[in-house]
């Protein structure tokens, strides 16, 4: 809410505090000041400000109240006039083009001079002809032969509003010659109102908080009202159909009003509070709402009588009937739902209760009698209505957060008083007040012990009582306990234990959070549970980074179309159930992802043209709907993506190799090794996303941990990849972490030197490396320490359909140096075994 500071000062004396101090007090009681707009007042001294300031200051020597004595025509410009003006020091002639001065042109000396805001030569103000707020300095110049050096200002030029249709004409009592800043300089505080503090979406509410925090007296609005008209009794009736939805409804009546502009100071305040002035009647309802927090609605009483066939109207509040429609005063027609509360008469709907008035019965230029509504509405129902209709107003903003019904009659009285003052007429005697459901204002008991238990610091009982009393709680003190009755201006205090917490919040924020001393946690540590899954997940991240991969974090929201890219067109046709988002933000984020592989391919695609070498991973959940439970399964997955060159080209290394399946396998092996996963095995597998001959599953025993390989060419074609093969892996993190071992045996460092030798065997092309290695190990027994494949050779020398596999073998004994004879024996055994099982032939060295 935008709160003009001078308006707040109507209710509390704050002249000894700077804007900065006031804004700070407000922020520290929960009325956070987002910014300050200066409208005349000077910028606070010093360089360091706690708040953001904008706006225009009016130096006292440059801006003054002046009076226009006479408006003369310009000798050769129809659209300009010359004003004979007195600025309190001397008489001058000022040139202006303001259309609202034309009516005075050439009528001679004005009987009642016009009070205006006058800017002298050298004044800095906003350029009225440029959009936005562009500063300009008044300089001496000639316009159409007439010298001009000063200006009568519009609201836009002074930074009050965007209006530049004419100059400001001040109220008649403005003292000529007074610096403008003293007459009407102000600062507008931009306040964020917390959801539970809607009582403070009002000038009086804010003043109350400041008064409590600074221990100053709060002035209450004077709602004394002269009611000299014929009694309202019998001239209107109220029928509330559901007191739950409409706990109170108050009507007042004023007759013979003149629909005209409000006094200038009213219009200025409304503008500063971001409300457009309309006429004195509508302005009175808005002004009172901003002041007290209670939204009001004015009906044209004569229209209601006409609708009632010349009789006294009966106002009925009820929910909408099936198919009922209403055109609101913004010209929109709404189809109403059966739960929506309406203010109606016997002829039909008049307004959407607490949200917006109807078009037909609104106050218009011909109105002379006004029936004024002050009511209370169920906030949940208002909420439902506005969220359904997407219709928001100042009224619905307040009612949807809960306005206490006790405010209704006070606000009606105050508003009638304003209508009378600004529009004339006579107020009908009395109000009609239906109040079927007054809320219970909870009485909450709170003791010094409660305060200390929760805040950790003791506050004396007198101070607690003082704070609550200033917030208008009715306090009954009994030694160290207070029984506090909630004031009838707020609905956010609950009974019982919750009420205690509610009061603690009130006490602590007014007492001041900064006065509560910080302490370290004093309780004994709770039982330790640890989080092994997270520890292992982070270990995995470290391992993958060590293996040269970049950690990524990705969006969970995607679309089935995006995920379909990971399958060839002729894929299985399996239906994949998704968790669908009801209100997607864009058409490409309609579901929660099922495939972490799809995410990784998108990441690679985004980056593949940026770097020659890419190697990335992500650890994150996928979301698989589960028919047996409300929530989907969140399965933690690891994806790895690699493409491009093995290293980047440099001046030394001009043609690095291209990464292949085996680079990915190296990463997988590195990960298995780092996690100490016992005996992982790899076997070929066919998966639609992968090349059928370049894809493997990694397993431990029968358990599949994941799949990796080179992307299927048809899948790759769905993306804008470079020519390099794209390598990808998807592993199940939970399975990996289940098998990973934290404690493992390590091998002793050998005390005796090893015997190292190479053998090469020629085998059929179909024989797998895994088969050969298993046979070598089997035959080698305990003495065989290490087997490393160092060459695979195919060629004419060894024949078609054959390959030569060369191994580097390490033999070792823990208790002695092996002899050549022993080594030869081992080699023979290994070779024999390969010959026997695979028909392998030892290749001559």
């Amino acid at each position, binding site marked *: 809410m935008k709160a003009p500071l001078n308006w707040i000062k109507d209710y509390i004396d704050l002249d000894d505090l700077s804007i900065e101090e006031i804004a700070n007090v407000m922020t520290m009681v*929960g009325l956070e000041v987002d*910014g300050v707009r200066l409208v005349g007042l000077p910028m606070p001294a010093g360089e*360091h400000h706690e*708040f*953001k300031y904008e706006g225009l200051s009016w130096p006292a020597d440059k801006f003054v109240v002046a009076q226009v004595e006479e408006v003369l025509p310009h000798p050769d410009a129809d659209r300009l006039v010359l004003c004979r003006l007195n600025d309190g020091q001397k008489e001058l002639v000022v040139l202006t083009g303001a259309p609202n001065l034309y009516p005075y042109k050439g009528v001679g000396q004005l009987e009642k001079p016009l009070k205006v805001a006058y800017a002298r030569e050298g004044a800095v103000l906003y350029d009225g002809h440029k959009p936005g707020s562009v500063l300009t300095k008044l300089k001496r110049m000639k316009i159409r032969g007439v010298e001009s050096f000063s200006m009568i200002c519009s609201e836009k030029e002074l930074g009050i509003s965007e209006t530049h249709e004419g100059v400001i004409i001040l109220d008649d009592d403005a003292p000529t010659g007074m610096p403008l800043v003293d007459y009407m300089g102000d600062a507008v505080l931009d306040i964020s109102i*917390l*959801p*539970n*503090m809607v009582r403070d979406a009002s000038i009086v509410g804010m003043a109350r908080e400041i008064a409590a925090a600074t221990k100053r007296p709060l002035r209450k609005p004077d709602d004394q009202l002269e009611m000299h008209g014929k009694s309202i009794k019998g001239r209107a009736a109220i029928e509330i159909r559901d007191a739950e939805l409409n706990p109170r409804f108050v009507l007042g009546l004023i007759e013979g009003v003149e629909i005209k502009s409000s006094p200038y100071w009213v219009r200025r305040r409304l503008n500063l509070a971001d409300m457009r002035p309309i006429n004195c009647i509508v302005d009175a309802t808005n002004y009172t709402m901003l002041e007290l927090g209670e939204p009001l609605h004015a009906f044209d009483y004569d229209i209601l009588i006409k609708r009632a066939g010349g009789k006294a109207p009966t106002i009925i509040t009820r929910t909408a009937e099936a198919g009922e429609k209403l055109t609101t005063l913004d010209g929109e027609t709404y189809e109403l739902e059966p739960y929506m509360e309406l203010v109606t008469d016997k002829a039909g709907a008049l307004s959407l209760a607490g949200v917006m008035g109807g078009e037909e019965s609104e106050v218009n230029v011909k109105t002379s009698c006004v029936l004024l509504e002050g009511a209370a509405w169920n906030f949940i129902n208002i*909420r439902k209505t506005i969220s359904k209709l997407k219709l928001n107003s100042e009224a619905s903003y307040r009612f*949807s957060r809960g306005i206490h019904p006790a405010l209704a009659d006070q606000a009606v009285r105050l508003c009638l008083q304003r209508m009378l003052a600004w529009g004339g007429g006579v107020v009908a005697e009395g109000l009609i007040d239906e109040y079927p459901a007054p809320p219970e204002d909870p009485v909450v008991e709170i003791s010094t012990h409660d305060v200390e*238990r*929760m*805040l*950790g*610091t003791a506050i004396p009982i007198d101070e607690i009582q003082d704070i609550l009393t200033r917030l208008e709680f009715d306090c009954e003190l009994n030694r160290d306990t207070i029984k506090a009755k909630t004031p009838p201006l707020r609905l956010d205090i609950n009974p019982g*234990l*919750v009420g205690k*917490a*509610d009061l*603690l*919040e009130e006490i*602590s924020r007014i007492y001041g959070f*900064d006065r509560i*001393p*910080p*302490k*370290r*946690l*004093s*309780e004994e*540590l*709770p*039982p330790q*549970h640890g*989080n092994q899954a997270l520890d292992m997940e982070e270990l995995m991240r470290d391992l993958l980074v060590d*293996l040269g*991969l*970049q*950690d*990524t*974090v990705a*969006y969970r*929201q995607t679309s089935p179309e995006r995920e379909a890219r990971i399958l060839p067109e002729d894929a299985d046709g399996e239906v994949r159930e998704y968790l669908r988002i*009801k*209100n997607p933000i864009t058409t490409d984020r309609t579901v*929660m992802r099922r495939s972490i592989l799809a995410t990784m391919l998108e990441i690679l695609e985004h*980056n593949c043209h*940026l*770097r020659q070498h890419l190697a*990335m991973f992500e650890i994150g*959940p996928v*979301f698989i*709907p589960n028919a047996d439970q*409300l*929530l*989907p399964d969140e399965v933690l997955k690891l994806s790895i993506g690699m493409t491009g060159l093995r*290293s*980047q080209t*440099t001046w030394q290394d001009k043609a690095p190799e291209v990464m292949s399946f085996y680079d990915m396998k190296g990463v997988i092996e590195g990960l298995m090794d780092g996690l100490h996963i016992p005996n992982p095995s790899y076997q070929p597998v066919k998966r639609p996303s992968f090349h059928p001959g370049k894809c493997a599953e990694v397993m431990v025993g029968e358990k599949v941990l994941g799949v990796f390989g080179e992307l299927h060419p048809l899948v790759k074609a769905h993306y804008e990849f470079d020519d390099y093969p794209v390598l990808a892996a998807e592993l199940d993190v939970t399975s990996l972490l289940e098998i990973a071992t934290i404690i493992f045996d390590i091998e002793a460092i050998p005390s005796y030197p090893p015997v190292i030798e190479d053998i090469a065997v020629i085998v059929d092309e179909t024989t797998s490396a895994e088969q050969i290695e298993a046979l070598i190990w089997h035959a080698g027994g305990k003495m065989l320490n290490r087997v490393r494949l160092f060459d695979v050779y195919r060629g004419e020398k060894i024949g078609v359909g054959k390959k030569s596999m060369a191994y580097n073998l390490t033999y070792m004994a823990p208790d002695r140096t092996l002899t050549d004879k022993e080594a030869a024996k081992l080699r023979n055994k290994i070779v024999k075994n390969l010959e026997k099982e695979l028909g392998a032939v030892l290749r001559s060295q």
Partner: protein
Amino acid sequence: MMAITQAELEKEKLTALKQLKAVDNEDDLNSWRVACLGRSSAVTQAFSSLGSLSKEERPAMGKAANEVRKALEAALAERQEVLREASLQRSLQSEHLDVTLPGRPILHGRLHPLTQVLRRIYRIFGDMGFQIYRSPEVETDDNNFTYLNMPPYHPARDMWDTFYTSDEGVLLRTHTSPGQIRVMRERAPEDIRVILPGATARYEQLTARSEIEFVQVELLVVGKGVTFSELKGTLLDFAKLTFGEEARTRLRPSHFPFTEPSAEMDVECFVCGGKGCGVCKGTGWLEILGCGMVHPVVLKYGGYDPAVYSGFAAGMGIDRSTLMRYRIDDIRHFRNNDIRFLEQF
């Protein structure tokens, strides 16, 4: 063969020493050694001719030959050392690299900035005895709102723009707070001291300043004597460890349905030092977290009697503070995974 005389030997020595002075490379030095100390050298001849000398002449000649050999050998060693030194100097002077050429790049990965920041937070709170508890990203409406004291149509639900799913009562959690309910229900009546990290989602326009998915970390402490003072002390320690010992902070009243009293913690803007800048929107303060005493309704839903137990909670967005810290121009960088961004951390 003519026996060499002592005088001749002496003359040979002088000649040899003179020749040695002119030797300036290894090859010539080798030739000199062969000529002057080799098999056919004068000194070797002197030794081999000893047998033919008389008993009287032999000792003198032997001694002389020995001295000459020693002198020549010493001169050789000395010359050798000089040449070695000269050759080292030559090579040191001739072999030099352009040290400004780039080194051989080592390709390596990095942790994502959010992972790095999370780990720092884990460590800070770990030191204070907080354990880590994680819970699902897709949640029930009850856990995300109702059990956190926001029944349907509660005004405070507006504070979170929510992604709903086509499954009734299922939504993308808007904060990590539903984890509070889960950990309390799992552990009641044990005392609790945990942090709850994780991904959350909010229905917002995707722009440089607003993001639909982001990481949050929540704190929860529940026990029989947990106070607002301790909330303040814990957060103050956290702020000092994160933003520096000198960082000014303030606790300002706020409202969250699941805490009461509620507060927000601001830290003095670390970009401008509190003078006011674009990052802090001219206020000199940056809002870093929301916190408060756990609301009695939430304690009750969690299985703790609010008359006996109290607790505090705090929640902070990691993306936003990381963004401010590194002055990142676009919050979407975190999840776009552009290598040019990630490489810089």
